[in-house]
């Protein structure tokens, strides 16, 4: 089938305009969840229908798209979404973080720092950070409107009471621009500090829950904590087995049935670049 069978980037122009209006409103009110008329996409909920719609609404013919899933460029979800836009929008795709202009992500923020020319699109399963404690939508909206965020700390309190420290390691709640509390999607809390004052525009799309929210460039994002239990970034005792990085977020991989484990970078592009660099350096040394 040729790309002609679809409108540019799959969605029709009216839908894209509707999504862009929601995105503009989201940027105007950092951290506020804007409802939008989420469409059925040719993929199941939970596979990034929200992120795909946001990407479809903002992507242009000259954009270069990168898609990552848990930091990797080569997983099913990432490969399929890249192929989807290569087919329907005929855009160039890449796995190189620095080369991309639009990066759609699931569960990670790339290790390579982003620039002001880039847009990061998050796939969000549950956008409402208060949902854990308050099941009623009418009530959570009122709580956001009145900035009644005391219950968010109840969750952190429970963590410390049970585990002795804040045990929430992903989807760690953060306050955006000193106003709204946001669920940064299930990224590890290791990535939370990267959201703060980030030069790139960050957009969050939740397809099933029909919400879009945003963190504009250079916006303050503060992770919630207690005075006597401050926010701490996850630390690893190991270095990446492939590239030796001690700065990046590591995945623990089980390698045999005798308890063998190895730690590797979750960001494949970052890891491969570092490997290529050290290989290049050792080749230069050889002659």
């Amino acid at each position, binding site marked *: 089938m040729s790309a002609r069978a679809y409108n540019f980037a799959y969605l029709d122009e009216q839908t894209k305009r509707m999504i862009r209006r929601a995105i503009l409103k989201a940027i105007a009110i950092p951290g506020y969840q804007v409802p939008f008329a989420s469409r059925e996409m040719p993929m199941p909920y939970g596979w990034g229908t929200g992120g795909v719609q946001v990407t479809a609404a903002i992507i242009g013919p000259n954009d270069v798209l990168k898609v990552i899933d848990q930091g990797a460029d080569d997983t099913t979800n990432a490969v399929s979404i890249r192929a989807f836009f290569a087919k329907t929008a005929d855009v160039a795709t890449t796995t190189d973080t620095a080369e991309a202009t639009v990066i759609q992500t699931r569960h990670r923020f790339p290790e390579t720092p982003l620039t002001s020319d880039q847009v990061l699109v998050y796939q969000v399963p549950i956008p409402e950070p208060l949902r854990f404690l308050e099941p009623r939508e009418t009530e959570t909206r009122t709580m956001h409107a009145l900035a*009644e965020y005391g219950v968010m700390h*109840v969750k952190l*309190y429970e963590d410390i009471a049970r585990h002795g420290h804040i045990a929430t390691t992903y989807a760690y709640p953060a306050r955006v621009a000193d106003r709204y509390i946001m669920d940064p999607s299930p990224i590890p809390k290791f990535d939370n500090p990267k959201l703060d004052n980030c030069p790139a525009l960050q957009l969050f799309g939740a397809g099933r829950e029909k919400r879009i929210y945003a963190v504009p460039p250079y916006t303050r994002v503060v992770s919630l904590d207690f005075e006597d*239990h401050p926010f701490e970034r996850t630390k690893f005792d190991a270095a990446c087995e492939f590239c030796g990085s001690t700065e990046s977020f590591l995945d623990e991989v089980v390698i045999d049935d005798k308890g063998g484990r190895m730690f590797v970078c979750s960001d494949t592009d970052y890891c491969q670049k570092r490997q290529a660099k050290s290989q290049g350096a050792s080749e230069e040394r050889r002659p």
Partner: protein
Amino acid sequence: MNLPLLSARGLSKRFGAIAACRDISFDLYEGEALAIVGESGSGKSTLLSLIAGALQPEAGEVMYRMRDGAPRPLASLSEAERRGLARTDWGFVHQDAARGLRMNVSAGGNIGERLMAVGGRHYGNIRAAAEEWLVRVEIAASRIDDPPTTYSGGMRQRLQIARNLVTRPRLVFMDEPTGGLDVSVQARLLDLLRGLIADMGLAVVLVTHDLAVARLLSHRMLVMKQGEVIESGLTDRVLDDPQAPYTQLLVSSVLAA
């Protein structure tokens, strides 16, 4: 300060053809416990909802003296102010503790929630306050990390009271606080409540159908029947010398122990 803490004037509320409350007026002063008694369907709970701001009256108004000393009509408060009041200056003890507690959150978290809602951000202080309040309501401090689902009915009710009193409110609404508890547990709970009301100088609006509870806890009482207050006065006077025929019936229907 001689102004009443809360004063209701001409409160009325209908549900369709049924007049749940008709032209009810009363004053409540600081440190005073007022019981609203009557049989089921007499409009007690509707009246409680009206003065707690959960329902809007069709006629009449409720004035509340804010912490700055100025009386303001409840209806004129913004939603943010009303919710702020309910979180700090008021307490609400439900008959069913599950409605007033977060059942999947530990006792410490339940008590600490109000402190965190008003800006408490120091874990150690919040936990210390929670421990102090657990002991005050006669729950072992070692149970601080257990969720209320593991508590008995009487303990849940006491936990609910601690959760409400931790911000030192001035006014507490109680809807059948001892309902559904067995007699000995009731007696302990009443004893505890009496002590707390006296120690903290709380104003209490107590809704109950149990005249013994009203006699133990309240200073004054309103007797309601079919949405109207048919008798009011000092609790001991009303119970020992009931004037209205309905009150006489109510008092005489209680089994003497």
